[in-house]
């Protein structure tokens, strides 16, 4: 039998990043990242199922994804809307992930039930220090659905054979979300919160055959009567209810798509937000559209079929300000396509010095341009040879993340 401590250790887990002393009493971002590839008690890919393991296997790239998200937060700590104050990492890398972000990995703990309980309580306490804090939660690993509307995140000690299959081995997300609400015990908890659940939401007959399985509670939640839940909360699931999440050697699909969003795909012009800041910021309201775009791109390339789900409560949060206009995928078409052999396509930026001419054999043209306004030009390459119905044309377009198509009619 593999023994686990019945009670969580009283000591705080190591922090991957801690800037609390410098920030003092001011607001900050408090992150909790749990990412599990190596499930000690689960069979490897080609091994037989264990008892009560629901057909789950070891994973290969969840830990890498969690570490990448942690690295992203730490590297951008001064560009976040509030500075990064703490980042707690609990990762269980697979053997071939052990060389990934080794320095960060040494400042993490193993995501077993006791460790997660301790880290979650400490994270909640930090998030409760200022109502202008931002709480950030990311989980990558296995997940299951027990019933409609339900989602359970499976921790590293799952399958240890002690007690019920999920008891003390899984987080019920309802418990997590409710425990982060404004309560009389935590009146100043972060009013901006974001949760990313990067895990399957499938069920299977072995789960349905069991009586409803309880997970255990990661923390106490005070029963509240009068306190309004005025959080602006974003909850993003990597999969639709009943659906799977996918991964490849570069990480989970959702993690890859999310990073594309955070790197500019979910950017909005802060001018449009009536902000005094010029420039661009990463908006949680822009996430659904951007995530769908990047997931569909991955699905097309890799033959998968993953769709995310998002719940947006009571407004928007800008997580990060960008140093420059974000990159935008553009697709440029000539109409009609029969004009392609006779025309030269080019773009010119209104607000930047970009001027690009595209080879005629590339159609439609796919490029990446900094967000902003452009002029798309279609010019006859040889006016003598071009059929008379084709004319030189110019059309303005506004490149907005994540993707902007533009068709130029030349007749």
């Amino acid at each position, binding site marked *: 039998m593999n023994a686990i401590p019945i009670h969580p250790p009283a000591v705080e887990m190591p922090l991957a990043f801690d800037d609390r002393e410098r920030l003092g009493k001011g607001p900050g971002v408090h992150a909790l990242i749990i990412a599990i590839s190596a499930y000690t008690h689960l069979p490897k890919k080609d091994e037989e199922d264990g008892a009560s393991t629901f057909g789950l296997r070891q994973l290969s790239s969840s830990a890498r994804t969690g570490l990448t998200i942690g690295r992203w937060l730490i590297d951008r700590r001064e560009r976040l809307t509030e500075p990064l104050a703490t980042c707690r990492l609990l990762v269980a890398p697979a053997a071939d992930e052990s060389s990934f972000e080794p320095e960060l990995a040494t400042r993490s703990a193993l995501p077993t039930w006791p460790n997660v309980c301790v880290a979650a309580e400490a994270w909640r306490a930090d998030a409760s220090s200022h109502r202008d804090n931002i709480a950030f939660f990311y989980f990558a690993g296995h997940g299951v659905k027990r019933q409609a509307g339900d989602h359970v995140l499976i921790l590293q000690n799952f399958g240890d054979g002690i007690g019920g299959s999920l008891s003390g081995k899984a987080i019920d997300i309802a418990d997590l979300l409710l425990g982060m609400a404004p309560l009389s015990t935590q009146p100043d908890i972060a009013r901006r919160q974001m949760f990313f659940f990067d895990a399957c939401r499938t069920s299977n007959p072995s789960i349905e055959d069991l009586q409803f399985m309880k997970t255990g509670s990661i923390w106490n939640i005070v029963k509240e009567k009068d306190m309004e839940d005025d959080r602006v909360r974003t909850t993003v699931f990597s999969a639709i209810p009943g659906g799977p999440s996918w991964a490849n050697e570069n990480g989970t699909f959702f993690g890859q798509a999310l990073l594309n969003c955070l790197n500019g795909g979910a950017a909005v012009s802060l001018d449009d937000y009536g902000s005094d800041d010029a420039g661009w910021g990463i908006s949680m309201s*822009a996430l659904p559209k951007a995530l769908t775009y990047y997931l569909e791109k991955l699905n097309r390339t890799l033959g998968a079929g993953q769709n995310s789900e998002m719940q947006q409560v009571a407004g928007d949060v800008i997580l990060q300000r960008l140093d420059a206009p974000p990159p935008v995928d553009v697709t440029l078409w000539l109409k009609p396509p029969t004009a392609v052999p006779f025309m030269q396509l080019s773009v010119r930026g209104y607000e930047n010095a970009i001027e690009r001419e595209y080879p005629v054999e590339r159609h439609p043209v796919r490029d990446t341009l900094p967000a902003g306004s452009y002029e798309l030009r279609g010019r006859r390459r040889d006016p003598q040879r071009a059929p008379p119905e084709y004319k030189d044309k110019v059309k303005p377009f506004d490149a907005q993340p994540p993707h902007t198509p533009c068709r130029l009619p030349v007749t």
Partner: protein
Amino acid sequence: MKPVFDNRADLKGKPACHALVVGVSDYPHIVGGSAPTTRETFEKTQLSSRALSAARLAEWLIDHRSRLAVPLSTCRVLASATPELLVHDEPVARATVENFVRAATEWAADAAANRDGIALFYFAGHGFELSPTDQVMLLEDFGNGIGPLLRGGVGVTNLFYGMAPSGNAPDIARTQAFFVDMGRTPQPSLQKFERTNTTAVFDANPSAVDDRKAGIFYATSSGSEAYAVPGGATLFNQSLISCLEGRAATAIGQTNEGNELWGITLFSLAEALPKQIDELSRSFDADQRVTVGGSLGPANLLYMDGPPLADVALRFEPAEAVADAHVEIIGDGNVVVASLAPPVAQPLRLELPAGLYLVNVSFPPAAAFQPVSMLKAVRPPRVDWKIRVK
């Protein structure tokens, strides 16, 4: 139960939109009602605008049916109001539990005919929160003393998951929108056993893959009230219709001629509706914040006839430039849509059709600023243009 609008005969086998719209203003069994008051009213009072709001939305859908992404096939309306309401010149049934379950069953059966269809649901009335993930909508016969206390209520969760794809409804409409226009204050006095006794509308199958693009738009956030103009419409209803009329429009593609095609999608509604209600509720000195849940997607709900109108606020940086700036705004086809002599208002507020505009700012030779030209986008519901001059 007869829909107030029924085009099923013409649309048989084709993707179509099916709407179920419910509004309850009259609650006979709570204070001020026409029948004996229930033992527990949860401090609820009679309403004056919820049934009207439902009727308003149903009329809007029927009037704008040509703009829906798929043709409107059925619109079912239940409304409890005094005097009784007509919708599309048809009398409507009252929003009792029995009528609700019957109408919802028929609505679901119609929506199950084609996976490319759209299912729309709207409820306005009293409601409260059993838990942050479980809201109950109270129907007209709430508190009538028959059966358990919450027999007159139906759960949003049951309705939402009951409309999911299942073995019984594999081809149910994959685009769905649920608009829940009610307060979400908790009722801690409810006993645990009472909480489980709402009326189930559907059997919900938990194991099927739920690949719907389905949004739940709550009028307010957990624990909060939803507001209305007495005798008029709810703030949520007003905001929703504004969004459907164009405030939530987004470019959904381009025509073969290269012109933008505009429409309302679940995404764009999820982005615009919270902003719209935030603006409206502030104007009433209220704080009401839309919550969006479900599985959103780029699913199209409506097409626009042309570019929607959007608010533009143009500001100069530095502000002193307004004293000398001449502003010319040029739209599609090189049409000058505005030509303004100094001093220009700061901010300058305009309403323009969505699209791209060339903004030329010139100054007299003696002025301290250089002329600038820039391309600016107008997107609903509003944009701020900052004109930075040196």
